[in-house]
């Protein structure tokens, strides 16, 4: 099952998923083999696999958007040459496991965890799926329809927040290899064929593109067996070449208002930043992200100002890395490595009457952060928090493996050690310099999902004050600040402000 679809489904079932697979205390191991690998052997009864290919949806050829994702789902959700998908599901069931895929712009990963009792059987099935896929027509028809349904139903139809975030990403990367949803577009998917899948697999699922991740209590020489299987099935190949231009320059505030009959108004905004985990400024921005908008935490600044004090919505967060499916996750997924990232603010749905006020409040607070920087006290507290909290990101064996693969991609040491070490050396000046250098509130792409989109656009562009409506009056200093926020100047680049019917999003 695809990881993203599984999450969407989990939310649909209203189940709280508790545990990612994995266990034990890992130590970094070195591969004694030629294939690139990350090995974390330990004494756990569980064994976790991550087969990571350095290729993703940014390598979708023009007109074939979605082929990377569809190819991955044909492997994780389709049959192998020797087993139909039905047989695979039946065989995996008593082991209570699966072999899932996740596709992002530059990475495709296949992951699964099994109990050691079932290792041989599990590996036989999973390796068959990956190295000897069946590529059957009935699987193709089902999975292509699923992909279209994901765009139409799961994003357009059922999740205004993810819809807005994904639309914003597409808009920021217009004309760029990142400029389409990972699953593709409705029109491109309709034209894809099974031959396209076979070609993409042949060209990109190569030994050169593969990094093997293995963690847990796997037997000695297990990686050699995997290497032998991989080299007998996958071509050596050359590394996928992907040239990434800079995203287009944003001039002023640019906005898409997506028209949808929905009770709330969902807002996201962001802009590209020249910082990834490889960059020396990344730890400083990580600290800023945590202070300003730590994911799903009631402790962050934005959450306090918008939700806690004003009761505007359910939560407000900030990000310096792509973080899909945030409404279903308390911590980010791994293996979403990218060479280009954006700074992003996610404002959860507000009552439509407070939509424009809230957008202004978000930009006002970002502007204040850029102008004033952080205080020593906030710096100290946030650093203390992150230094301890970073442990929680890698509490399972599988998450340790995912992070280890990402650290290899970004060329840093073990993630938790790296973060703690760099945080220890950071100063307030470093952080405030990084804020000034990388963040700003003037040239920003905004995505809004709301009913009465035309009215929202008109009010935003006209720039008249947009007062907040309260159920319970906050203290005077907040009301005074509201006066400033309601009239906060929005410098829209009016030629780049548009209303889009929801049915057009992800269409082509």
């Amino acid at each position: 099952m695809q990881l993203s679809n599984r999450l969407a489904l989990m939310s649909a079932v209203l189940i709280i998923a508790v545990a990612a697979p994995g266990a034990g205390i890992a130590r970094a191991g070195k591969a004694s083999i030629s294939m690139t690998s990350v090995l974390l052997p330990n004494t756990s009864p569980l064994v976790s696999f991550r087969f990571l290919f350095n290729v993703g949806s940014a390598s979708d050829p023009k007109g074939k958007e979605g082929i990377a994702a569809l190819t991955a789902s044909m492997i994780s959700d389709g049959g192998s040459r020797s087993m139909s998908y039905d047989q695979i599901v039946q065989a995996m069931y008593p082991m209570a496991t699966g072999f899932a895929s996740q596709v992002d712009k530059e990475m495709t990963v296949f992951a699964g965890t099994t109990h050691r009792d079932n290792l041989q059987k599990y590996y036989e099935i999973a390796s068959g799926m990956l190295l000897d896929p069946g590529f059957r027509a009935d699987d193709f028809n089902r999975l292509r329809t699923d992909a279209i349904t994901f765009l139409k139903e799961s994003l357009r139809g059922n999740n205004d927040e993810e819809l807005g975030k994904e639309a914003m990403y597409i808009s920021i990367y217009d004309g760029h290899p990142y400029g389409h949803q990972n699953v593709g577009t409705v029109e491109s998917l309709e034209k894809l064929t099974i031959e396209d899948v076979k070609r993409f697999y042949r060209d990109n699922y190569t030994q050169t593109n593969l990094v093997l991740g293995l963690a847990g209590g796997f037997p000695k020489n297990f990686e050699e067996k995997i290497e032998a299987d991989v080299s007998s099935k996958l071509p050596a190949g050359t590394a996928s070449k992907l040239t990434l231009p800079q995203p287009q320059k944003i001039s002023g505030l640019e906005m898409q208002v997506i028209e949808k009959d929905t009770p709330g108004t969902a807002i996201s905004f962001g802009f590209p930043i020249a910082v990834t985990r490889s960059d020396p400024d990344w730890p400083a921005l990580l600290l800023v992200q945590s202070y300003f908008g730590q994911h799903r935490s009631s402790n962050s600044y934005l959450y306090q100002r918008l939700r806690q004090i004003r009761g505007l919505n359910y939560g407000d967060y900030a990000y310096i890395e792509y973080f899909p499916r945030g409404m279903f996750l308390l911590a980010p997924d791994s293996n979403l490595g990218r060479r280009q990232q954006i700074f992003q603010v996610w404002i959860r749905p507000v009552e439509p009457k407070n939509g424009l006020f809230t957008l202004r409040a978000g930009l006002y607070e970002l502007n204040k952060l850029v102008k004033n920087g952080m205080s020593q006290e906030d710096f100290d507290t946030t650093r203390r928090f992150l230094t301890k909290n970073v442990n929680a990101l890698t509490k399972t064996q599988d998450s340790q493996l995912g992070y280890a693969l990402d650290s290899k991609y970004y060329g840093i040491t073990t993630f938790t050690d790296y973060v703690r070490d760099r945080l220890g050396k950071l100063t307030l000046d470093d952080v405030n310099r990084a804020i000034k250098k990388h963040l700003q509130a003037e040239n920003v792409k905004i995505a809004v999902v709301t009913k009465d989109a035309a009215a929202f656009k008109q009010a935003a562009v006209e720039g008249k004050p947009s007062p907040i409506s309260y159920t319970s009056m906050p203290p005077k200093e907040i009301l005074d600040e509201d006066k400033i926020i309601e009239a906060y100047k929005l410098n829209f680049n009016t030629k780049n402000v548009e209303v889009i019917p929801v049915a057009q999003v992800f269409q082509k």
Partner: protein
Amino acid sequence: MRLFKPSLLLLIILMPLTTPAQNKIFPFKYFTDDLPNGLRVITIPTDYPNIVALYLAVNTGSRNEIEPGKSGFAHLFEHLMFRGTEKFSAEAYNEALKNAGADSNAYTSDDRTVYHTVFSKEDLDQIMMLEADRFQNLKVPVDLFKTETRAVLGEYNKNASSPVRKIYEALRETAFKSHTYQHTAMGFLRDIENMPNLYDYSLEFFNRYYRPEYTTIIVAGDVKHENVMQLVNKYWAGWKRGSYVPQIPKEPDQTKSLSTEVAWPTPTLPWVAVSFKGPAYSDEQKDKPALDLISSLGFSQTSDLYQKLVIKEQKVDTLFADFEDHSDPYLLTVVARVKDPKDVDYTKAEIIKAFESYRTTPVPAQKLTAVKSNLKYAFALSLDNSEAIAANLAPYISLKRTPETLNKLYDLYASITPEDIQQMAKKYFVESKRTTVVLAHKEKQNAVK
């Protein structure tokens, strides 16, 4: 379990029951301690270093919302509990959590509200003190109360774009006539909208349920039992027992099949839900465990129905069963998303047929073995860190207040025979216990009929 009668003023090191765990589905040694005020503490020292997971399960959920117009209050309290006390304002509380690098959150379901915090072991004293303070001394002024009710409305609104949420609302409102399972944990929208006017009632609600006899503390992680109990006695022994016992309305027997249709304002593929009234959670009777097995056998990815509708015919793209454990009889529900509106009736009929097949045809022994193996390994794979151990335990602790219920439950699963399955299917999968919901885009709905 060991009851004791020490002075509240003493720090007490207990001699609790230590449960050995060989060959049990819950494989960890744990300690169970009861304080005289009714508070129960389950301590599970694990081998995972540094991290501690503290879970506080309060046995109040939307099930306890018995007065008309007052739905959603258990969930509202999940929010209010982060709004501060006399000693620690919300800001001070947050600051302390931040200093501990803690991940802190909470959730509300029909039967419980669970507060969870995960942090480094050196902060156990501090976190235990903060939790005890807010559970005993919560003080939310009326203006902050009103502000928080709007955050709850925001939560309702963020959920409102999901048709599945709406299906469950409609299903419960149709299937239950008296019992409080009639509403979801969020509550009725009309009640959420009226929450700002019910400050005094909120005080009453807290007074009733935030009491030691309703609460169980779970501590899992890099801890020593003695240290945990020293802190529990230091911070929680003075908490006063309450006296309130809610009269949860009993649901009368359903006497005929029920159905409803939901018109969805924006384009969506149609959804079908078929539900049967099932039994409450039990670790002694076979009813619920047998139906658990059917929900996996009949409607998981390996089921004949899934293979038919999703894989072969490709008429349905999502199919799942949901039968969460509940204190009182609840619904076993199967939900499907149908690719073409013309197949709605067919899908509904196929789901009903699949339920009925368990009445007439015994399950092959091999399939039963596979589902039991699936349950066993799924549980084993899930217990892979301290937080997961506490999180998995919390629902069972809320139902029976002991991890032992898990071992009893899995023993029951192991004992179920094809005859048991058939017998339970005959008992529960009858037309008069059935409720169905169809949700479709409003223009399409006419075509569905």
